[in-house]
């Protein structure tokens, strides 16, 4: 995983990822219920935080090599 704001291309990929995640939440709210959408949002947030945490730990462990 790379820093998503290191380049425009990476930032664009983040926009697409966040938009797809948002669409999932909206679909859950519209098709099922707002409670399910809240659960989906919580799960997506947790996945995002875990992945960010792993990336930060790896970046600190090897500052000169980001492409793990």
């Amino acid at each position: 995983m790379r820093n998503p704001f290191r380049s425009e291309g990476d930032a664009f990929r983040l926009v697409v990822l966040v938009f797809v995640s948002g669409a999932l939440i909206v679909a859950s709210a519209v098709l099922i219920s707002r409670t399910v959408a809240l659960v989906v949002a919580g799960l997506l947030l947790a996945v995002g935080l875990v992945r960010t945490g792993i990336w930060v730990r790896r970046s600190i462990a090897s500052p000169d090599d980001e492409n793990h």
Partner: protein
Amino acid sequence: MESASVTLGHATGDHHHGPPEANKSSKVDQTTLGLLIFLVTEAMLFGAFFASYFFLRVVVNDGPWPPEPYELPVMVAGVNTAILVSSSFTIHWALEGIRRGNRKAATLAMAVTWLLGAAFLFIQLNEYIHVGFSARDGAFGSIFYGLTGLHGAHVIVGLILLSIVNVRLWRGHFGPKAEDHRGLELPGIYWHFVDVMWVIVFVTVYIL
């Protein structure tokens, strides 16, 4: 001996004046690093507003949210979200165009990006006029206008940056090399950040 060392000092001193060069990161160039640090502060600012929003909604509020009789125009905001996300695609198209030496495509894509951003702002202002409550109407009104207004302010800044990029493109600036289109790439990163923040604001305020 003394004169020899003085001569040597003068000889090396002629090559470099002023303080030594700053230590550079091997990961990211200095200008991008400056933007990254700025975006970190921006994320914290949005974080403070989101914290206020959830505090008011979950801790303080004990009725329905939004409070009756207020109703948010979810459909209009959804269309506005699609408009803003589309502008991320067009700014990416602009950068790809300049990377491949296609100035015409880059100029067109950047103009479309500006128009989409302006359309988003216009629709949001129109929403403020017709939404039926103001920032003075309780905690809900305050945080709604605070959060969406904070984002709107970022869109205004983004539009100013995009205006500068548009003028520079018309004047023939930027080239395919990375160092020749930094002035387009950095506003692009900022614009993507603004888009990401809007998707989060939209989902939080209008959907959940």
